[in-house]
């Protein structure tokens, strides 16, 4: 991207605000030790169920742990999860998409069959099934969500590859004697980068929401890990006497996911406004 495009990108409000929000999350994650008020697992029964105050910005939970600190440390989980899920989905999905789009017929049919299987039921149900099999833990949730979602990459990339492979410049490459591998990696892949970027901006927020949903159901990160979904679930029964326990992690989730979504909107406007979800 040249300078003019970068300037235009920064002027795009969506991209800018989304980027700022994402950066604040990253900063919280990196400097959690300095930003948080207390260690996230420090139990202090005497101070349990305190409303938000200057000692505890977001109040305390039933064990007297500082919710603000737990949320700050929780950004690490949020970022880790988003990153890993995206990388896995990207690698599997894009590779299969390129193959399916480039090689027609049997390869394509086989890949679309496998894709259909992962798409044969709603993501939540599938991830629930996988977590049931593997057991509740953050790692398994990440695996489950990554497994469930790569299909969206495959569908979009294979469609784009199909249109690209019929273009004259690919014929020219073949005439020059380029191997299939080279054609796919040097000619086709770079032209799918826009779609990949947009897919990533769609994957990140979904990954965060899905992991916290599974965490909320008790099937994800296990206590005392400060997963925002877990914190929220711990506040459900106490909603009347200590609503902050559930409200603050929810707001944090909204903040992060909104940030990713707005960032995605901005990028979509710049890169490929006609993108079809």
């Amino acid at each position: 991207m040249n300078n003019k495009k970068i300037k235009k990108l920064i002027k795009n409000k969506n991209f800018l605000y989304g980027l700022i929000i994402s950066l604040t999350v990253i900063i919280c994650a990196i400097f959690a030790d300095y930003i948080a008020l207390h260690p996230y697992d420090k139990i202090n029964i005497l101070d349990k169920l305190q409303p938000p105050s200057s000692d505890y910005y977001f109040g305390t939970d039933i064990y007297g742990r500082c919710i603000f600190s737990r949320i700050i440390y929780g950004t690490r989980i949020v970022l880790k999860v988003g990153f890993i899920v995206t990388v896995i989905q990207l690698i599997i999905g894009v590779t299969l998409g390129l193959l399916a789009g480039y090689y027609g017929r049997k390869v394509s049919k086989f890949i679309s069959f496998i894709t259909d299987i992962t798409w044969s039921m709603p993501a939540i149900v599938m991830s629930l099934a996988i977590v049931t099999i593997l057991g509740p833990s953050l790692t398994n949730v990440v695996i489950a969500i990554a497994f469930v979602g790569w299909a969206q990459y495959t569908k979009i990339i294979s469609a784009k590859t199909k249109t690209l492979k019929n273009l004259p410049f690919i014929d020219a490459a073949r005439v020059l004697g380029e191997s299939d591998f080279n054609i796919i990696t040097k000619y086709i892949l770079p032209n799918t980068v826009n779609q990949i970027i947009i897919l990533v901006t769609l994957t990140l927020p979904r990954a965060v929401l899905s992991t916290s949903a599974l965490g909320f159901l008790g099937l994800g990160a296990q206590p005392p890990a400060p997963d925002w979904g877990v914190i929220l679930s711990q506040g459900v029964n106490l909603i009347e006497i200590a609503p902050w326990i559930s409200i603050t992690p929810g707001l944090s989730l909204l903040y992060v996911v909104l940030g990713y979504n707005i960032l995605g909107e901005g990028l979509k406007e710049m890169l490929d406004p006609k993108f079809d979800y």
Partner: protein
Amino acid sequence: MIFLLEYIIRRLFIGVLVLLTVSILLFAIMHSMPGDPIQLIAGDRADPQKILELRIKFGLDKPLYIQYFKWLLNALRGDFGLSILASQPVSVLIMSRLKYTLMLSGIAVLLQYILAIPIALLAAFKKNSLLDKFTVYSTIILWSTPQFWLGILLILLFAVKIPIFPISGYSGPLSLVLPVATILLTNMASGIRITRSEIVDILNEKYVITAYAKGLKEKVILIKHVLRNALIPTTVMFFLSIPWIIGGSVIVEKIFAYPGMGYLLWTSITKQDYPVVQGIVLIIALLTVVSNTLGDVVVAYLDPRVRKNMEGK
């Protein structure tokens, strides 16, 4: 019409293949898991004889593939085996809950369809106006809201602080309001967004200008030309969203302790009641395949281009 039938059958066939594969995978994996449900039932101190008896009772002593075929044959007859925990037939258990889930999901899906279209039409027609911008931003915010948090917030506001609706369970139509609202608010957002974008595209089409040039009134143009054409992809989306709403009901049902299939799925997972989990997952997979196929059929019915293409084959 015959060709339509052929098309449906072909799609269903693939769907069946997918379902079979899913069921095999599910079955194989669930039965090779550590942790023994029999142990759970029998308890720690049960004697080996009792455990063996229980195993035979649940057919868990035979080789895996035989267990699978038995299960498959039974499943086709609607018999999903016995729930390990409840000692009831799984199918009975599921049936007693299914109607609640269908009620919840059904109302949510219908309302989503009815509400999303006029909102999207208005926003698209008045593109970039305040109304449109408000709509777009609202949908992005709603779309970013965690469903489980929204549900709890609604409970806090409308069931606890201002006790209008019941907090949980099912005790009449009022119990549906908050769960439906939770599902609707989070799911409708993407529906509105996509429909709006479809309509914006259509409004830019040349045939809309033709309609104006003919002298048709604006209302007629919007409904007969724009909306009718937008309904095609929108209706498909409506059918495709059905499985997602049913799947998502797991969370909503859990929050509201709503006695539906989703809640049952969650409790069965935490208690490792495999037959129930298997049964529910497969039913949802079946509903997904059926919804997707219905979506394709509806497109073929509504869009003459697709229809004639098929008849040509």
